[in-house]
């Protein structure tokens, strides 16, 4: 069974997704599908809060690659917050970090996005 859950909240025109647990199997694909649904509905600003993410493996990287690509396709903006160093290192290594904005917390990300209308 997947050790993964996802909580969602909308802050006006921003979708905030907070995954919890391990992002290492197909159960975590929900994160990618949900992002796509938000983008498909016209929402262009997505924040992913990593504070409750315990582990990301290569399959997890694939899921974030999909999210990044879809955000590019929809010309959206993707922000990552509350990242541990180990997770940031992975995204730097695979080159995903160049396509996202990284913030200390949700507040900073929302503040940045509110100036980008």
């Amino acid at each position, binding site marked *: 069974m997947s050790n993964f859950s996802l909580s969602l909240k909308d802050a006006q025109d921003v979708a905030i997704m907070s995954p919890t647990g391990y992002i290492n199997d*197909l159960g975590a694909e929900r994160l990618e599908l949900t992002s796509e649904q938000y983008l498909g509905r016209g929402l262009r600003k997505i924040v992913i809060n990593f504070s409750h993410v315990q582990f990301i493996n290569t*399959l997890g990287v694939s899921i974030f690659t999909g999210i990044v690509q879809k955000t590019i396709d929809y010309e959206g903006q993707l922000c990552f917050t509350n990242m541990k160093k180990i997770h940031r290192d*992975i995204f*730097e290594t695979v080159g995903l970090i160049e*396509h996202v904005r990284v913030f200390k917390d949700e507040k900073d990300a929302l503040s940045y996005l509110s100036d980008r209308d």
Partner: protein
Amino acid sequence: MKRMMFSIASLADLGQEVSSSKELTDKMRSALYVVTGMFSVPSASLYAYEAPKKCLKLLAHKGHKDAIKQVSRLTIRADQVGKFRINEPHTIRELSLSDFYEQNSSVFASLQARIFLPLFVKDEFVGALALGKKIGKTPFRPSDKDVLRVVAHQLAITLHNARLFRDLAKKAAENKRLYENMRRIYHDTIQAFAAAIDAKDEYTKDHSYRVASYAVAIARELGWKKNDVEGIYVAGLLHDIGKIIIDRDIINKGEALTGPEVREIKKHPQISYDILSKIKFPWKNVEMFVLHHHERVDGKGYPDSLSATELSEGVRILALADAFDAMTTDRPYRNRMGLDEAFREVLKCSGTQFDEHITKTFFNLLLRELSGEVHDLQILPLLPHLTESISAN
């Protein structure tokens, strides 16, 4: 350095996915996700080679949700397979010069593939991986090709094993089907024999079938295993096969038999055994049940006058089933008994002719059927002429 460490960790993740116990489609999908994560590729497709259909069939994909139909199949001929470099990544630029690419150009356009990786186990082609462009259009590095060679080996072995397993499962299903057919033919043949035995005796029509059915009812009640129950059913059907060579006039004689006639008819269990012991039944002891179905627990039976301790449970069951049917059907020398009379007769002979435990088991089941406690009737349908009078009373 970081990149190399990530590649090693990714290959470990891939190893974990391909060796998982997941169903093949899920396993290959997870493996494909790991590969796309390794190279930051948002779209990729994994194909399994189907030589008879001359195609590569889509097994798993990522990022082609809107174009599944277009990418579901690549056509390929054996001579085109021979041109691939084994487990070596081919760039689409290289591949575009081949007639394989030419005939699948629309599929490759939908795939937006940058790398085509043919998957081989030794020199057997098992499938292929098509990788799309990297995110941000970063080109594939020379070191990526080294990692892809390792990926190719892992995926190829997984596909190959899955194919072997699938072939084995197919063969097992085919064997099972053949076995079932053979079993059916076996049963039909046995039924035909039983009909031939009963045809010889005008009074004992369906006797073999009823004896077999009573024996099954008792064996089930005693908790016998399914295969053993089937064995005693067959023994019941064939227990009188030796009567085939006994003179019809003796079998159907309407008065008391003479001494030589009794001796003649008593030969039938041994003759039955002699016939059946030539057959290698898939059930245990069929011929022994038949040989001893006229033995008694007091040792006064025939042909071997065995003592109670020498009688198997199957023999005891068959002895009671045979005698009970003889009592409850018309014979040339007497009319059938009513159910009450047959009950009394069996009880009288319990402990001498019949085994007490088997008798008790049989009567308990019969009484439960008569009281309506049991819905799946096994004995009463065999006694319509007797149970009608009971319900009338």
